[in-house]
């Protein structure tokens, strides 16, 4: 397989803050350096792209020295946290902005889907928009004409095709837009995960179409996603980005594992400073909270979950309890469950350790968040903290179904089936 994309030392610098009179002086200075044949003075400064820390410089490197190659027919998944530089990389690849340094060499036609329905005009009919959008994405009029019926039936909007799209439901709008995108025939397709919109059935259709594009038609796809299950399922290669740098590249499984391990900091908390500064108040100080798989080394549906809390209690002689509240990423409370630590007003000052487990096949795949509440007599709150720890339960193939299923829990239910043939009486 030949190399189809070659990315060499790509960097991208952004200027922070506002464009105003202050920028003119920088522009003039930059121009003055260039006239004298010197290097841009602002390229030397600039900091790595870490959103959380406040830097001193006005310039930031959104991407720094990215190198990778993609071979024909590969599906490369690009993963990383928000602000890791994924979208900037896609923008450069799709030529909506130019890199500051470095070069990218590409063979064949590139189509980028950073958004569906780019250039849709609300006043125009579905038919007119299909042609317009197709042309924006790089199709010729003939090509669109040839695929028009296919696009419309893919989107399922035959009846509304001559109605202005402003009258469409948002679902119809997205389906039509994706329908156009899905019928592009570029050698290289660049896809942002925002594409996976719409209802579950349509999402499946989209992902299926992408799989088709790469597997059957031998095209190359670059796919940016937060959905690890989709990356594992669709991609053949993975690239992990962090703070604008290429941290890891390998197979999709290795990349997802690398990303999750780098993510682990999020699902555990360990306090190492002075006791009075630990999260909490004069009653309670939290020192440690871990979420780990019960077995194996990856939190998944079948691994089960073990969580362990360590805290310092300042309130002696009361009925103390620690309540764990688990919610899903869409704020659905999975359970609110207290661990009663003392019942006869006999709590002790000092260190308490509480361990809990959730059995395998209990939580469905997804992101979960722990809130912690410490109480007296199960009525008075001594200390409460929301969104303390976040962890992700990975999807996995169970039976023959590899898809992420809806629901907060996914219990292994034992069914008993009986059958009686119905007879006419």
């Amino acid at each position, binding site marked *: 397989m030949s190399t189809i994309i070659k990315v060499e030392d790509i960097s991208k610098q952004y200027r922070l803050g506002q464009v105003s009179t202050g920028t003119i002086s920088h522009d003039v200075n930059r121009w003055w350096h260039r006239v004298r044949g010197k290097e841009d003075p602002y390229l030397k400064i600039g900091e790595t792209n870490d959103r959380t820390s406040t830097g001193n410089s006005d310039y930031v490197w959104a991407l720094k020295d990215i190198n990778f190659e993609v071979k024909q027919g590969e599906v490369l998944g690009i993963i990383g946290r928000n602000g890791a530089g994924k979208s900037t990389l896609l923008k450069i690849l799709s030529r909506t902005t130019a890199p500051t340094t470095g070069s990218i060499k590409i063979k064949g036609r590139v189509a980028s889907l950073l958004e569906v329905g780019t250039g849709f005009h609300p006043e125009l009919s579905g038919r007119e928009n299909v042609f317009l959008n197709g042309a924006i994405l790089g199709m010729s009029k003939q090509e669109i004409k040839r695929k028009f019926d296919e696009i419309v039936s893919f989107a399922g909007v035959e009846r509304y095709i001559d109605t*202005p799209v402003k009258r469409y439901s948002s679902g119809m709008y997205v389906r039509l837009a994706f329908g156009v995108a899905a019928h592009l025939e570029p050698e290289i397709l660049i896809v942002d995960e925002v594409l996976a919109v719409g209802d579950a059935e349509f999402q499946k259709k989209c992902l299926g179409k992408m799989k088709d594009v790469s597997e059957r038609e031998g095209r190359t796809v670059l796919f940016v996603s937060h959905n690890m299950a989709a990356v594992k399922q669709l991609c053949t290669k993975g690239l992990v980005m962090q703070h604008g740098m290429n941290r890891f590249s390998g197979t999709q499984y290795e990349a997802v594992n690398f990303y999750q391990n780098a993510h682990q900091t999020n699902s555990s908390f360990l306090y190492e400073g002075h006791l009075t500064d630990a999260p909490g108040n004069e009653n309670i100080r939290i020192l440690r909270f871990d979420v780990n798989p019960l077995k194996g080394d990856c939190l998944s549906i079948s691994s089960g979950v073990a969580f362990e809390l360590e805290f310092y209690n300042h309130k002696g002689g009361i009925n103390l309890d620690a309540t764990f509240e688990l919610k899903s990423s869409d704020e659905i409370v999975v359970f609110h469950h207290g661990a009663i630590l003392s019942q006869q007003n006999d709590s002790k000052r000092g260190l308490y350790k509480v361990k809990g487990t959730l059995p395998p096949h209990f939580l469905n795949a997804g992101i979960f968040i722990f809130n912690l509440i410490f109480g007296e007599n199960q009525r008075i709150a001594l200390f409460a903290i929301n969104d303390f720890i976040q962890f992700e339960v990975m999807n996995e193939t169970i039976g023959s179904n590899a898809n992420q299923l809806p629901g907060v829990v996914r219990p292994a239910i034992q069914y008993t089936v009986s059958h009686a043939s119905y007879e006419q009486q």
Partner: protein
Amino acid sequence: MSQQTDTTEHWDLEIKPQSSVFDLNLKEVWRYKDLMLLFVKRDFTAQFKQTVLGPVWHLVQPVLTTIMFLFVFHTVAGIDTDEIEPILFYMSGITIWNYFASCLTNTSNTFVANASIFGKVYFPRLILPLSVVLSNMARLGIQFLLLLGCMVFYALFKNTPMHFGMSWLLIPVLVLIMAGIGLGLGIIISSLTTKYRDFTVLVTFGVQLLMYATPVAYPLSFLKSKSYASFIEWNPLSPLVEGFRYALFQTGNFNFNTLIYSFVFMLIVLVFGTMIFSKVEKTFMDTV
């Protein structure tokens, strides 16, 4: 699929930080001609969707402006109109000027107005200003028909002679030069506005002021023996407006030297405009 591994591999596309200003890629613009026509269609059809009169609205503005000019410049100020019927004089000036004005103002906000499309997908950016020039051409066509109608009306009922001859061949040339200057100035301004919005403020009233520095509401002959006449003559748009009237009515002063002056001005503006435009289009998303 696994043949050449030599270093001189062929790449279809190379993305680099900055290319030379002469890297215009006009071939690519041609490849996207379908898109350009669709943009023209979009601009033209979307503008009057859900209106009863539709494109007829294009006629309202020149008619009302003509009536206004007739009142202000003819009746009140009493400016002579070069032996042309005043209504036809004003309407012809307004028709060609409108084309220039809308080319300039509509291309000058190319980057800012289309940032949402430009930010998501690549196509040669020049397509959009070009499509603006073309869709305004359609508008010009409608307004020109109105002007023709008026001319025929005057010829039939008011016995104003209608000159229909070789001079009409001049009209497409004049329109093209008009389009070129409008497009050139427009893309220069649009390139400058990506970072500094100051120019958008300038354009709206600048165009209006420029109209008074162009013989739209008065003939160039009116300025004869006035000290500032040469200032108006240096305006590269003056020969175009005067030439348009000359082509239609065969009156007024017009010579080819002034037309060549306008043409050269158009070339300079266009070349400079495309150069600065193609330099800005690469990174404007970061500053817009």
